[in-house]
């Protein structure tokens, strides 16, 4: 097996290396990928057409918004997939277990530190979600940070405390609602007579002109992504750290 694996890996590596000599130089601004009309269009027209200075956010949420919708669906699938694989709903230890151990979680110092920094982490996460138009960040990064803040709470105060805020039922509702916001916003465009995810259709219900409608819609879509990602990140951690029993975390 090892020999076979080594041979396969070497063949693959040799093929890939043989192609690198054919590539344009690294950092070449005139390489086909960098000077292609698609990339020039994104760089030159994005701010004019969508009023968003961060091109990555604009391309992510608008030009390739269809991709991002499925990216959110991928996260969602991972979340429900982990529950479907790990949880054992009909066993004796499903939801009937009460918290038998109040000592779980970190020590006093950890709790104190966490209670100090958690609000700031969460505010920063919300800032990242909301400010993705102008600075690096967006729904996904902010959502991961928000989810991580709950993971931190679970580590410091014990999973059962964190579960009181963010129960499994709630995570599933949050996750589904996030995608619902994203897809529903696209369907709204459909109902207004334009293509799916064509945010320009919504300029009559959003403040500003059609270009601002794109910008505002990106924010709404990013919020949807943040909902799903927050919920699923926390659900992923809580299931994986307890082998799907959802009691007694790390």
């Amino acid at each position, binding site marked *: 097996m090892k020999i076979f694996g080594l041979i396969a890996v070497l063949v693959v590596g040799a093929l890939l290396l043989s192609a690198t000599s054919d590539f344009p130089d690294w*950092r070449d601004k005139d390489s086909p990928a960098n000077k292609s009309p698609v990339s020039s269009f994104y760089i030159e027209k994005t701010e004019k057409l969508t009023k968003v200075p961060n091109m990555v*956010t604009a391309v992510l949420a608008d030009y390739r918004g269809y991709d991002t919708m499925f990216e959110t669906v991928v996260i969602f699938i991972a979340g429900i997939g982990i529950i479907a694989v790990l949880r054992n709903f009909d066993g004796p230890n499903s939801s009937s277990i009460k918290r038998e151990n109040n000592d779980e979680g970190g020590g006093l110092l950890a709790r104190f530190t966490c209670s100090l920094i958690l609000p700031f982490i969460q505010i920063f996460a919300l800032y990242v979600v909301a400010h993705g138009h102008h600075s690096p*960040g*967006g729904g*996904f*990064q902010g959502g991961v940070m928000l989810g*991580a803040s709950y993971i931190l709470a679970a580590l410091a105060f014990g999973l059962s405390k964190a579960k009181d805020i963010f129960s499994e039922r709630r995570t599933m509702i949050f996750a589904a609602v996030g995608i619902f916001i994203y897809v529903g916003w696209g369907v709204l465009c459909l109902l207004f007579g334009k293509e799916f995810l064509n945010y320009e259709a919504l300029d009559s219900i959003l403040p500003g002109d059609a270009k601002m409608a794109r910008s505002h819609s990106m924010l709404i879509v990013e919020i949807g992504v943040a909902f799903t990602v927050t919920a699923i990140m926390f659900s992923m951690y809580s299931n*994986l750290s*307890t082998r799907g029993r959802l009691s007694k975390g790390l």
Partner: protein
Amino acid sequence: MIWQFDIIILIFLVIAAIISLRLKDLLGASMVFGIYSFLICLLWAEMGAVDVAFTEAAVGAGVSTVIMIATVFSTKRRSKD
């Protein structure tokens, strides 16, 4: 866009990848994998891909490592290879 940094980080990356795969202690391997993610996040920030670097910092060095460690704690810590 300083290529010297680029080369140094890339070499560290290869070292980190090899170490994390050689360690027999899975907890240590996950930790080194976190370091690997952090290095690659630095690299992307250096290459101007700030959004990707941000995401990798949150996901690769953060959540991926955490869920990996969570799995190591709820299974076995030693590995045979």
